[in-house]
């Protein structure tokens, strides 16, 4: 959280929501909507997809809960001069993209930032650690029930593939042999 402030944020809140069931983004969205609603923010940015998203991604769920528009897979976003709209580029399949005009307030799912501030100098981090405060916010447990998960399992190891054994040298030899058999070499 301190790193987030050191990079760009003016304020950071740590939310204690008592979420006891994972894989329940509807509950998480309910919490965020409660905290972020009421016209506090014009622009709410989320990621596009988390690795444990089962019941939809957070951005769309928060937007739907707050009755705001949502656009995901955003690779570029520019605020318009009068602060009432953002102009975004949304990725489409096949390498295409579309340019959209989105009226504020809105929720955007960001796919990739153009120049993300990945590195924070240690001096900046130390300075922020002395001055920044992270607010701890408690909210009531959400009412959204999780889905009825009946089974969690791992896919079979190497399922479908004929595995080539041996070290890298042996793998190189066997792959070359395979490609030769398939007439895939010049």
């Amino acid at each position: 959280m301190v790193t987030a402030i050191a990079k760009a944020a003016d304020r950071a809140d740590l939310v204690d929501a008592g979420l006891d069931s994972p894989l329940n983004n509807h509950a998480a969205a309910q919490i965020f909507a409660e905290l972020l609603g009421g016209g506090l923010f014009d622009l709410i940015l989320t990621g596009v997809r988390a690795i444990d998203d089962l019941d939809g991604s957070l951005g769309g769920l928060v937007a739907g809960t707050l009755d705001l528009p949502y656009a995901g897979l955003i690779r570029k976003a520019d605020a318009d001069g009068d602060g009432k709209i953002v102009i975004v580029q949304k990725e489409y399949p096949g390498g295409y993209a579309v340019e959209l005009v989105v009226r504020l307030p809105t929720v955007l799912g960001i796919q990739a930032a153009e120049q993300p501030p990945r590195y924070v100098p240690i001096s900046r981090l130390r300075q922020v650690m002395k001055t920044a405060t992270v607010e701890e916010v408690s909210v009531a447990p959400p009412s959204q029930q999780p889905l009825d998960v009946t089974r969690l399992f791992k896919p079979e190891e190497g399922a479908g593939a004929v595995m080539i054994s041996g070290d890298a040298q042996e793998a190189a030899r066997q792959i070359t042999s395979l490609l030769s058999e398939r007439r895939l070499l010049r």
Partner: protein
Amino acid sequence: MRNDILVFAEHFRGTLNDITYELLGKGRELAQSLGSRLFVSLLGHEVGGLVERLGAADHVCLVDRPELEEFASDSAKAVLEAILEDVQPRLVLLGSTSIGLESLGLISARKGVPCLDNCTRLESRDGQLVATCQIYGGKVFVEVALPEATTLVAVVPGSFPKEPGEVATKPELRNIALPPVLPEARTTFRKLLELPPGDVDITKAPILVGIGRGIQNADNMSLAEELAAALSGVVCASRPVIDQGWLPFTRQVGKSGMTVKPKLYLALGISGAPEHLEGMKQSELIVAVNTDPNAPIFSVAHYGAVVDALELLPLLTEEVSNQATKKASS
């Protein structure tokens, strides 16, 4: 509630996307099993000609208006909600695509109905609908028993065959009650951005050397280029490599990049997130190399090796080059 099923049709530049046929085929199978009807929604402008490609469905909900020319507008989402209200389906099938995902969470929250994403399997067990979805980049599968209420399910493209959904007859049109003027759109389409010209078209390359995080840094890109040269192939990549700027966007394989079907796809240091797999799993021959024996890439590969791609790359280039030399001299 009836057990009816609704498919959201996707189309682009006048053609129905493959995911539409995949969903129609699965929808038809489930509708037969449940003894229910299959509906398909078709939204757009001047898209009436596509109706006769949707014969796998019993009914088509066609809404043809200028403001629906591009799906990204929120007018389209308002219309989808009206269709949901009218049809009251038990199951709604969408693509887990840039188009389908735009609506999934939004409509789920607005209508107060559950939803699932990343579904790769869907079946009826004695009337109980069960979906299998991927999480943790395809390393874990989750089986979910769907509730009796309307549920939205987004399906990963390529999970079901498209042929059963390709039925060229005209389904019955169903009139949907819509207000004469849709609510003012808060998201509007401005323009389509084409691919930058000049780079090689990886969808036409017969041999692709695909690289992922395993390449580690930009300095190692030359190793992949050398192997591609030895194989007369082209280097492409999964998203992390593109995001680093080591290859242009035109070389990205996966959900928001290209879908490729080469004769050979060498996946080197690619773990195989679902977003990448959907762009390459129809390749004729897939050889995957990764240090993680549980990497999901091995689930779609025909051959696999658990070794370090960086260690393998120069060795494989040398073997391939030697083989070419032998062939030339024989």
